[in-house]
Structures are given as C-alpha cells and as structure tokens.
C-alpha cells in the first residue's frame, strides 16, 4: 500500500519532538479523520535552523511530517512557503489517493508555524517602536 520511502520515514521518523523556545508553532487538525500535527520552528537569519514535530495520525501522516521537516530544515522561509501540498507526497514516492490529505496536513502545519513566527516578529517590531 505504501512506498518504501513512506515506510522508512514512518519507522524512523526524523525530527520528532518539540522545541522549548520555538520561534513559531503551528498546530493543525484535519476535519477528515481527526489527525493532528504540531510543528515547532527555530528561525535564524530568515532560515529554518531547526524544526520538530509531533503527529497524531496514520503512517502517511507521520511519514509526511517527518519528510516535511527534512525538506524545510536549512531552507529560507520563502523557499519553505513555496513547498506545495503535492511536493511532500512526491518526495515520499507518492501516497494512495485516500492519504493525500495527510501530507497536505504537513505542509499546512509548517505554514502555520511560519505564520506564527511572522506574527510574533511583527509584534516585536510594534513593541520596539
């Protein structure tokens, strides 16, 4: 049912956990089956210096989270925002149709984390005025 790449990321997920002093946190849940994903990012000079995740969901959701963190790490915020929902599934060697929403969740989660970061940044600027 799943590609080898999915099974590999599912059995050895990268970047599991949370970042205590994260610069941005994203939590998204999908109405389709109730899966939930938390993503934490640390940003340095506009680059995703560190990223961690926690996921409640199926093997595809866990593998997508893991793959997403790998794809995002070391990239600029702009580059990460360009990652589309399909890119995660493509990198995983494809997902069954019914499981596409699980990989969508991963790209949504990192977007949410970046938005959270950007919002916090703008607050900081506001306060420093």
């Amino acid at each position: 049912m799943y590609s080898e790449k999915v099974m590999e990321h599912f059995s050895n997920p990268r970047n599991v956990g949370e970042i205590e002093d994260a610069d941005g946190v994203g939590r998204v849940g999908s109405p389709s089956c109730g899966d939930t994903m938390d993503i934490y990012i640390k940003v340095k000079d506009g680059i995703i210096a560190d990223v961690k995740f926690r996921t409640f969901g199926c093997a595809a959701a866990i593998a997508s989270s893991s793959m997403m963190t790998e794809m995002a790490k070391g990239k600029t915020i702009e580059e990460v925002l360009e990652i589309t929902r399909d890119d995660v599934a493509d990198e995983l060697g494809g997902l069954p149709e019914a499981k596409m929403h699980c990989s969508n969740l991963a790209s949504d989660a990192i977007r949410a984390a970046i938005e959270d970061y950007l919002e916090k940044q703008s607050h900081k600027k506001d306060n420093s005025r």
Partner: protein
Amino acid sequence: MKRIYMDHSATTPTDPLVVEAMLPYFTEKFGNASSLHFFGQEAAEALEQSRKQVAYLIGARPEEIIFTSGGTESDNLAIKGIAYQNSGKGKHIITSVIEHPAVLNTCAHLEKDGFEVTYVPVDSDGILDVAELENAIRDDTILITVMHANNEIGTIQPITEISKISKEKGIYFHTDAVQSVGKIPVDVNELGVDLLSISSHKIHGPKGVGALYIKKGTLIQAIAHGGEHEARLRAGTENIPGIVGFAKATTLAKERLAVDSKHLTELRDLLIKKVLDSIGHSYLNGHPTKRLPNNANLRFSFIEGEAMLLSLDMKGIAVSTASACSSRSLEPSHVLKAIGLRPEDAHGSLRFSLGKDNTREEVDYVVESLAEVVRKLRDMSPLV
C-alpha cells in the same frame, strides 16, 4: 522474523486435514453433481454427505442446509429471499446498528426497493437493547435479522431472547453466525432462529463457500436464477471441493469446540489482562464476558490504529483495526460509533482475534511488542 497471526476473524488458515479431504474432488472425483452418470453420482454423494456434516454442526436437518459462496451470499439470500417472498404481508425489517456490511448494505438495498428498516441500537458494551427491538415491531414487520456475535468487538447477542419474541409475533428471525460458529455452541433449535448464516473460511475451511440454514416450512425465494440446484434456492453447479472442505471443517470444529474455546478464552483473558496491566490508558471495547472466546478489541488513547497495525506488522504481528484512517471513507467503524466511542477513541482501537494455534508465548511476545509500539507512537503524539 517470527510471524504471529492474530487476525482470525478476518480469515483462518485452511486446516491440512481439510485440504486433504478436498484434493480428490479437483481431480479424479471432478463430476458435476447434477449428472446422472457415475462421475456425477460420486459428486452428488459427496454433496449430500457434506450437507449432513454441516447440518450436524448446528443441530439442523440436512434438507435445511443450502450451500452458498460464503457468509455474504448467505446473508443476502436470507434477507432478500425472505423480504421479496413475504412482501405481500409487509415491508418492514428490523436489524441492529452493528451488523456486518453484508447485512447492513443488503438492508440499505431493500430500503431503495420500498422496504423500511429499523436499526436497533446497542448499549456501551455492544449488546442489543431487546426492549427497544420489541418496541420496533409493527404489524407489517416480516423479518428480524440480528447477528449472533459481532465481528469487530466480539459481543454475543441475546439471540434466544429475541427468538422468543419473534416466535410469539410470527416474524421470521435470521442470525448471522459467521463469527460464532466454531467458537461457541451454535444450535439452531436452542437459538430458536429460522435462518442462520455460516462461512467456511472463518472455521479453517476454504474461502468462497458457506451455508444458509433455512428452517423447514420457511417461505423464501431465490435471489439468483438458473438451474434447479440447492432446492431451487441457489442456482449454479455446486462447488464440490469447497463444500467437501467446508464440511470437513465443520466436523473438526465440532470435535474441537470444547478444547478450542477453553484454550482461546484463556489466551484472550491473558492478553487482555496483560495489556490493561502493562499499558497505561488502554481499554477493552465490548462486553467483558459476553464476548467471543477469541476476540480482544482494545483501544489505546492518543495514537492511531493504522500506525499501530503497521508497526506491529513490522514486528511480524498481524492484527486489524477499524480506525477512521484505515477506511476509505475516513469514518471510524459503525460498530465503535454505536458503542458510543468518540472519534478520537475509536481511532486507537485494535482487534486481536485469536486462533487455536496461538500460544501463551505468542501472547507474551505480542504484549511486549505492543507496549513498545504504543510507547514509540505516544512519544510522537501531540495529544499525550
């Protein structure tokens, strides 16, 4: 790697003695049971001998057994066959909310065809509310169909209580006994049913064969039309090798019932106790005692069933899940919903269905592996 099969409610390995009994019927005894010559008569004899064996398993008369292609077809024949034959009397059917899709979707089909169906709820243990069923009976009710034991949570339904009511009211009563046969005593007279479905592959017989018990005098019609096979209720050249294998499996099941059910009950209770003792936030779904000797349906908070299933699979352990993520519809199972589980609780449910060849050592290994899998997935879960 060790390979441990704990998914016997899905299907069972065919017993070697069953295979042995079947083999001649593929080759030298290949005849068509409708043929008048020697080859045909040999097949016809095997067919009638098999009918006796299957009848004996459930306390029926041989002429009350119709061979089918399995549990699904038996359910279809029972429900549609009764509905269409008795629609002059009424078009109302009563069933439960936790039936197998073979029953639920057959009822749904009849609803499109002008029949009305009442779905009786179950309590949080998965036991049907008999009073509610009795209240649902109307003057135009022609059939009650309630499963003997549930395939997901193993709950055993109060069939004799229901049959008392159905007899009193003169309503046909069908039960799907696909999961209960071979695990608990199933006797059509004790149960008091008019129709009962059995499937061969759940009792160490071959796949694609089953039977419907139809009590003598029941008004029913065929749902597929053709030759005059099986008392004109099931047209088509009989699957003699399959039927012979099925019959052998019923004989073995009958011989082994007492020993098997004791062994299965011990293993089940050991598995449940060890899991509940050693894994936090784990719970049993279904009734603690009114359940199949081989069924342990357990749920684990904060994690998802498909992920657990695949992690166990990598450790050589085969189980099943009814989690939303494992279904095409992304809906949790109708059974887990019916017993009142919230979607997030239904998510983390696993079904362990034991077989006669499972051992205590396997249970130990499974619980150890499960504890590891649960720990690993919970470490990854944002909900913990």
